[in-house]
């Protein structure tokens, strides 16, 4: 039965890691603007697209 206690401690460690990640994300303003990034992702970077077109031509 003692192994269960070890498992609980192990799983809690994992869970707490995620909680810390969440706290960090909130404090890092990642939840401040949830709309703009969803639009931003639709576009490639300029420099990257330039390279792509050049490599396509070549």
């Amino acid at each position, binding site marked *: *039965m003692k192994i269960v*206690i070890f498992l*609980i401690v192990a799983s809690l460690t994992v869970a707490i890691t995620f909680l810390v990640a969440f706290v960090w994300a909130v404090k890092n303003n990642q939840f401040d603007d949830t709309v*703009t990034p969803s639009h931003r992702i639709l*576009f490639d970077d*300029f420099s990257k697209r*330039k390279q792509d077109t050049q490599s396509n031509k070549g």
Partner: protein
Amino acid sequence: MPEENRNTKEKLICVHCGDDCPDPVWSGENVFCCTGCQFVFEVLNDDDLKVASKEAAAAGVKPRALKEGEFEFLDNEKVLEELIDFREENTVKATLYTPQIYCSACLYILENLNRLDEGIIESRVNFLKKEITFTFDNSKTSFRKIVELLTTIGYRPDLNFSNKEKPKKAGIMKILWLKVGISGFIFGNVMLMAFPDYLAGGKVDPDLHKFLAYLSLVFALPLFYTASDYFKSAWTSLKIRYVNIDVPLSIGIVTLFLRSVWDVTSGAGFGFIDSMAGLIFFLLVGRAFQQKTYHSLSFSREFKSYFPLSVIRLKAGKTEHISIREIEKGDTIRIRNDEIIPADSKLLAESAMIDYSFVTGEAKPVEKHKGDKLFSGGKLIGKSVEIEVLKEFRQSYLTELWESYSFGKARESYVSGISNTAAKYFTLIVFLIAISTLGYWLPRDFGIALDAFTAVLIIACPCAIALSIPFTFGTAMRMLGKNGFFLKNDLVVEFLDKTDAFIFDKTGTLTKIGETGVEYIGKQLDNALKKAVKSGVMHSTHPLSRLIFDYLPGKGSECDSFNEIPGKGVEAIIGETHVKIGSYKWLKGPLTELAGELKGHEPDNPETRSYISINDKILGYFAFHSVYREGIFDFIKEISGKRRVIILSGDNASEKQFLESKLGPNVEMHFNMLPDGKYDFVKKLQEEGKIVGMAGDGLNDAGALTKADVGIAVTEDSAHFSPGADVIMLADKMPRLSKFFRLSNKALSTVYISYIISVVYHSVGFAFAVQGLLSPLIAAILMPLSSLTIVVFTTTKTLLDSKFLRI
């Protein structure tokens, strides 16, 4: 082809992004929802935006109107300081509000601004706030250049003083999200830790049981941080000898914890930590749901945002741009068409038309003559004039008017009437039950007495009651927001239908701003005379002349002689016809005749009229009246059945008769009201015990709106000035206001029903509790179940209600 498309009413779809185009931008045969789309569409096949923009310019893509020297004032250091966020040597950071941000294409172009101007280091867009934040190198470019660039590509920034106001709400939300996350985490984990006990029914390995029980106690500690707001609120209310909903909540939470500590340390059981965590988690979720922020709206935009940033000062024959804070007494400044007079001053030009509708509520522009005093806040109509400043900006009429209001509303947050009345009775009943339970058990069994007493306090925790308002009003608020009716805070929903006196402003609220109806009364004019009159007003810049010009059909012709006499009217000779248009007093001479049709029309009516005389015979007059919003009268009649409806207008009484004929005797009307008068009117009604609602739009309503219990700022576009309002409403939604009232009413009854439901749950709980039979398992089922029922019921019912009302 495109010309035809423009006239048809079919839905326009943006060629680039496929969205609807409420405000279409045309380029050849293509239609775009915004300039961003147009721009990106045109450069999409190019590698480099810079090349493309040059090509676009060469190809004649029309840059957006940028007036020569329009942004010259941005070179002034003092003005600049008002606008930038921060500066370090040559690196400058600034945020601009650009209302034209509409779709992803806008984002694309605005975030790649450095392709167009090398001095820009980085630019970031906040889509919801419609803001662009950029960092630039001041040695390579300048703020002015960037603003001009933005204007050229179609994103004219809204430059004003209140740009720098930063909302504090974001920080509160952040903390709330943290608390929701942490308590959710604890809720989930502790519930799992409690499961072995619930499922195995006490046959758990004692070591494991002990380990889990103590672990859950440790997990309970952070809950005191997440629930700290409830404790604070309960404490503040107790200090002023008042019981709000947070008092029984806090007692419940503390009892849950103490009882759990006792159970665990004495080895009696597992404790109630899972119920405690669940309770706090649900409460915080409710609170998060309650907070709905409209990012692009500001509910207390200051009057300063109404002023221009700078003015042109004439000094020693030279013109210079200065910040309006730098204006000094005795300065001569130049005001152009459509500009606001920033400080009280004296008119130096012969005459000027000043529109005070925003400040006083007068519908029509006032004519001022040389030497007249001009109050700040008026808008100049017509050609530019020079004025001499009499008072500094800070001491001017408008500034002082505003300052006297800024302390108007002491109430920062609403105290919800119903939830606190409910809390008061609820707490009283709970304590009666708890004390009598204790009284019954104490002589019989001390252990059971303690168990039962704490169990009653635990069950009493009014979680369901505390949740019903956030979810009902929160949902209603979202539904209203979708309809252009933006509430500052969800508790306004409660007050909306409770108002028993409702005040309307006339100009700009009931009537449409910038639209004036014209009517001709008198002897019928034939086409030749119409043409003569039209020619006569053609060269006049007087607003009434413009209205007459637009009203008459056909085209005007050149006059042989034309003369405009300020304050009187215009005079023109076209061939044989001598036309005079102006005031009755001026036209009436010893030789003038009056057309028969005008007999009985008293010229002293306060209504604004322009008389016309042809060859010294007065034929008739043009009457001007406001244009009322569609459906407005039906709506006012509808709401006046239940409450006192009053119209307070800063304008003269010329439309009194018309309004009376439309609204009937139930509606009170007061005219020539000064801003102070409106404020006092609201105050008087409140002293009579009325809950006062008010809808207004101008600065003359600012004080009254702030004072009113529900102040609704009516605005044509949401970026406009809104003084201390509780609600911002788009002007065209005005006739739907009665539906919003009905939704408010429905929401209240939803809250009452949910109270009954939660009382049923509590009664079941009390039945267990008073017998000392409340096990952690029962609590862990009953408490989340009651909360969930309330959440589902209130949200669904409010959604159905709004669907039913067709909101």
